[in-house]
């Protein structure tokens, strides 16, 4: 089950966040900061799946933006990896060559 879906840039600013389970707002910022720190410290040829506390993170980097999805144990990691890519391709089609700015400015549209 997917727990959350984040798009965070390299400086740690969250561009999009969607939580599918209740997480308190203070904890959210902490969670996001930790997650981005973990992802930033990985090099390019390392595995895209990280085990973090009791769930897994699947992340993918597109230019300066990280898309991170938190999943629990029953999910197929590779399928989620593909899902991330599919999502980015959809955004690309919608905004015609999407960039980080598009994501920042059209948050509500992306949500829906």
């Amino acid at each position, binding site marked *: 089950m997917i727990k959350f879906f984040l798009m965070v840039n390299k400086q740690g600013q969250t561009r999009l966040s969607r939580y*599918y389970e209740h997480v308190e707002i203070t904890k959210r910022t902490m969670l996001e900061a930790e997650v981005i720190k973990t992802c930033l410290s990985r090099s390019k040829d390392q595995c895209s799946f990280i085990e973090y506390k009791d769930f897994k993170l699947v992340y993918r980097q597109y230019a300066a933006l990280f898309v991170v999805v938190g999943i629990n144990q029953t999910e197929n990691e590779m399928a989620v990896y*593909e899902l991330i890519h599919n999502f980015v391709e959809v955004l690309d089609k919608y905004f015609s060559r999407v960039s980080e700015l598009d994501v920042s400015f059209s948050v509500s549209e992306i949500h829906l």
Partner: protein
Amino acid sequence: MPAPIRLRELIRTIRTARTQAEEREMIQKECAAIRSSFREEDNTYRCRNVAKLLYMHMLGYPAHFGQLECLKLIASQKFTDKRIGYLGAMLLLDERQDVHLLMTNCIKNDLNHSTQYVQGLALCTLGCMGSSEMCRDLAGEVEKLLKTSNSYLRKKAALCAVHVIRKVPELMEMFLPATKNLLNEKNHGVLHTSVVLLTEMCERSPDMLAHFRKVRTLSSSQLVPQLVRILKNLIMSGYSPEHDVSGISDPFLQVRILRLLRILGRNDDDSSEAMNDILAQVATNTETSKNVGNAILYETVLTIMDIKSESGLRVLAINILGRFLLNNDKNIRYVALTSLLKTVQTDHNAVQRHRSTIVDCLKDLDVSIKRRAMELSFALVNGNNVRGMMKELLYFLDSCEPEFKADCASGIFLAAEKYAPSKRWHIDTIMRVLTTAGSYVRDDAVPNLIQLITNSVEMHAYTVQRLYKAILGDYSQQPLVQVASWCIGEYGDLLVSGQCEEEEPIQVTEDEVLDILESVLISNMSASVTRGYALTAIMKLSTRFTCTVNRIKKVVSIYGSSIDVELQQRAVEYNALFKKYDHMRPALLERMPVMEKVTSNGPAEIVQTNGETEPAVLETKPPPPGLQPAIQANDLLDLLGGSDITPVIPTALTSKPACAGGELLDLLGDLNLTGSPVPVPAAQIAQPPFLLDGLQSQPLFNDIATGIPSITAYNKNGLKIDFTFERSNTNPSVTVITIQASNSTELDMTDFVFQAAVPKTFQLQLLSPSSSVIPAFNSGTITQVIKVLNPQKQQLRMRIKLTYNHKGSAMQDLAEVNNFPPQSWQ
């Protein structure tokens, strides 16, 4: 009041902020503006304000004052308002706030709205954050929408149903009839969501699962064939642009169907059979050049492993995993290692083939891969490959990150214990772990290790020498120091005397040993527990060492006033031992007997050889109750003419000896001796192992050769001793003799002790008698069991000696028994 700024302006403004403080200021200003605007009940710009509020919420600022506004937006008629309102509801509200209940009516109306988009919005919101009450109220509506022909609505309704089921499981049956037709859709979206719905139902309730396995719907056949058909169409169909992802059509749907098949096929033979073909087809036809193909293959492998597939299919799956392992992509390797870990229990041999690749993965740079490889390596260790694997694992322990070290160390200990090819190798391995990762070793490793060392009797000198060398240089790793000080305390005499077969003996003087123990005591790095170990070790050495006793006394008395309460207590007690109880000191501080593991089956009456039966230590042993028979057995030796008869010491009754050793036993009682309460007297001849097996329980042999006549071995002065024989068909050189002693006089015979001796070619063992009193008038008997090993099948001869008290005087008699029936020894 000027019009509030648009969202884009806000975002742009915030982006210009250069510090966190500036950003906060801007946001607060904007929040104030929004709040005053809300108070004015301004309808036109409400939507814009809420949008801004949502953005600020995403950045992490509190936005709860906007909740009511969201509700107002939902209630409005404009679509844009509704849109933002529902989004806000999804993001800001959840069932913890009471406000959400007010939404129920709005959602109900919107579910019946004429525009499908509005209906869709309502379904989304309900599916996202509906509470159980809301779900209960609105489930009927959702179910109705599940049956419409509008595919846009159908898929949203299916997802909403999933959420409803999660919140209120009792409503599952309500959705059951609607699911029948769901799989007949062409639209992939609907198919996908309905598969999700079915998966959720099957996972939640085993009844549903059974139902789905067997149900026959109206027009089509069972569920599993239906799914198989859909999957086949997906694979076989050509290029379809709207579903294509890198050449494979709708991989997401394929993965979902595979997962549902896995759930249906688990533990069910019929379903599994139906799936075998399609799984094989998917496994062979999918392209592996792209990640997408690999994702599908991964899911297929998981499914094959979970259902009751045939062996050919399983081999195929493991081969796929093996191919994954060799792939360069890290993700794929990680995934392969994870699934191999799951399958290693069931298909051990198949996984062994890939052992070398897995061991290579230990050297990978990536943390996740290393962890998986480590776990998998531990699962793969077995008797054949333990040496090689252990070398790799020790190397890994040297170089891995600290968070792995504790797990790795415990894993190595477990594996070494199970598969150690020799004691020396075992001890070497443990020493290596202690020196490399000493501080990460778990606390319970220390007592386990100590027990292991005591058990390997012949390795004591070697072990203590190596441990001494290890802590000479560096005594900061606590578990290592604890084990080392314990061993030095126990076997210090071996260390000083320089005997060691396995390695070059080093010359160590007693002073050097005491030096190192004292430095451990003094050092700041030692934990309190370690200091306790060191102090006790120094104390034990007072009996082992000869010329440094005064120094030991001094050290111990210093610590009598130490700040640490534990140390102080120990030192004071040891001091008392020096001063007042010096006669007990040697006995108290003698070698520990071999400790039994607590999990062994029952307390053995004989602890396997005490090992430390060196004659030098013999006089300091507590005089055991069996010592008198030992002395008397020597008399027997003389009597039997000195052609080295093996003397047999009967096992001691567990009665308390009334001598200084008695206090000793009390004191020893609360030391952690798991095992027999009485230390067995010296000179227990090593018996052939099978004789020791039947120690506790009296039913000796199941297959008893019957028909051996019993004899009366002795009959004098009213005391009669009968021998009955048993021989085993499986082991013909063992004869079991049960003696029965009865008393026909009118007074009891007390303190009855029976001893026996046999010629050299035999071996004999006496078990404990049932009691030591023979009641008068034949009203009861003493029973005792003797086992005789007669490998050369010589004639059985026995000399017996009886001692007892009768009519107030001690009686003693010797006799020879020659009338053994031939069947008892041939």
